[in-house]
């Protein structure tokens, strides 16, 4: 009777030790989000006090920071811009990335490994080197100060990444499905469209999510190419437009941040493993 209890005690002690060690990490990671939430719902007089415990409400929570965003700012337009931009970017990424990933993974093109790696490496060419020449390209096309410029440039980030991701995904599919399709008289394109794409929905979905989230991580292109307040994507509009001179309306800023940040974080979280796999080239589970 004694043995199981001590094993159990050992197990409990081990857990306590781990929780103790990991709690600081969790607090460090989550605290800024908590601070964002509590700020977004606090009334202004409650926000600017130094005498009370800051992590809880001392006046009734309020929705007015949220309603302010939709009545007095371009917030709704930014959200719509962001969603439209991301949708276009996702479409372009898929139209370009799926065929390329498939060709690199399955059609035994000479040098396909090197080609795949070179496409992927362009993901690492930093925006800070490209944004000045791209600003010229954007103005030559007459797209400056218009969110279409971002639809044009964001695929430079998403195509390399998603092509690489999809290439890895296609490699994991059994070759038999295409062989069967070809025996049934499909060409290469027919096999791709009829049998490969339908079983690739998870890979394609992942690419769409990353096209969305990667384009929402951008700050520089949005800042450099789009000046009018109503054309910005939300991740650029919030930090650049909601601040009037030196005055920060922290309540509405945090409300705006929360409404964008949380859904993206949650979405991203679901696909994080695939993201890591995409970067590390398939090692790990």
């Amino acid at each position: 009777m004694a043995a199981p209890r001590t094993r159990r005690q050992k197990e409990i002690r081990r857990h306590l030790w781990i929780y103790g060690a990991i709690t600081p990490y969790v607090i460090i990671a989550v605290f800024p989000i908590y601070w964002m939430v509590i700020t977004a719902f606090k009334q202004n007089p409650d926000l600017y006090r130094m005498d009370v415990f800051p992590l809880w409400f001392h006046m009734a929570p309020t929705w007015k920071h949220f309603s302010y965003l939709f009545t007095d700012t371009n917030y709704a337009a930014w959200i719509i811009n962001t969603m439209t931009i991301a949708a276009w970017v996702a479409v372009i990424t898929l139209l370009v990335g799926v065929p390329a990933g498939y060709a690199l993974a399955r059609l035994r093109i000479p040098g396909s490994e090197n080609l795949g790696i070179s496409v992927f490496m362009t993901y690492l060419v930093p925006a800070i080197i490209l944004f000045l020449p791209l600003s010229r390209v954007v103005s030559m096309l007459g797209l400056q100060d218009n969110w279409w410029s971002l639809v044009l440039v964001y695929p430079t980030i998403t195509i390399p990444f998603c092509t690489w991701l999809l290439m890895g995904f296609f490699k994991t599919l059994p070759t038999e499905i295409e062989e069967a399709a070809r025996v049934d008289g499909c060409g290469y394109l027919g096999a791709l469209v009829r049998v490969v794409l339908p079983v690739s929905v998870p890979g394609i979905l992942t690419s769409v999510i990353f096209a969305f989230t990667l384009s929402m991580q951008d700050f520089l292109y949005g800042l450099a190419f789009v000046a009018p307040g109503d054309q910005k994507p939300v991740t650029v509009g919030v930090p650049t437009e909601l601040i009037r001179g030196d005055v920060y309306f922290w309540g509405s800023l945090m409300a705006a941040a929360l409404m964008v940040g949380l859904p993206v974080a949650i979405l991203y979280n679901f696909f994080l493993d695939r993201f890591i796999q995409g970067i590390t080239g398939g090692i790990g589970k």
Partner: protein
Amino acid sequence: MTASSSSGGPDAASARAAAISVASRARTSGWFRSQTSRRLGVGYLLLAPAVLYVLLLVGAPFLFSLYLALSDANVGEPVASFVGLANFRAALESDVFYIALRNSIVFTVVAAIFKGLLGTTLAFLLLQPFWGRKVVRGLVVIPFTLPVTISVLSWKWMYDSQFSVINWFLSRIGLVGSYGSPDWPVWLGQAHLALAACIIVNVWRSFPFSAIVLLAGFTSVPTEILDAARVDGTSFFQRFRYVVVPMIAPILLIGFLFDTVFTLSDLSIVYLLTQGGPANATKILPVLAYQVGIQAGALGRGAAISLFLFPLLLPLMILLLRNLKRRED
């Protein structure tokens, strides 16, 4: 594609009796050749849009930035003339450039050390089986998944000169005086603190990434090998040093290179927190390139400054390239 019939046909007709096998082989190879060329044709066709997009919007702009850097291009005047290396020389002769270069390196190195330490310890903790591990993992990766501008805003509010929640805690536990006293930290207003504040945000944002990449590496080490090493009487640190690290070295390197490239070339944290101030204390190369190239309108000089990042990034990218290649084989 029509080659199969023409090459197979005459062959079979001329050597009718003797060479049925030869004919059929010729036909097979012709068929095979056409299949190959068709496959490659389709392959290159499918690949073309991606290669074109990348060449037109990454390759060409990169070359164009070289051209811009050698010209006196301005936002206002579309016609630029060749000025040779004047922009590079101007950068090398300005004090701000050296400050920015130094800050960039300090920022990247110090941040990398902390990301390594925090990431490794966190990865070890997440490697242990415990109740609620999935939830904990989901929570600790939040910083990495939030859009960067969003999280930087939250930090800016936490660093507020008067209502900083960080300072509230520090003063309550007695580490700093109360508001208005000389040791009340003004995070974004004092030179050393401002750089530290930017590094803290970068570390906060990226250490979960280090941890997750390391975790992927750790879990890829087969347990049998670790058990075998344990049976041989090795200590935990010996196993880590001589078994785990060599096995996951490629993954470590990839994670490290990725993070370094993004840290070196990121503008958003510093730009949103301090815009490079106070008194250039947080000026890093990307911020300088943006301020010169866009805000001051000197495209040529801005391009030259941003190109100084390239020699810093190139060795990292070559290392990464070789590493990825080796792993493909």
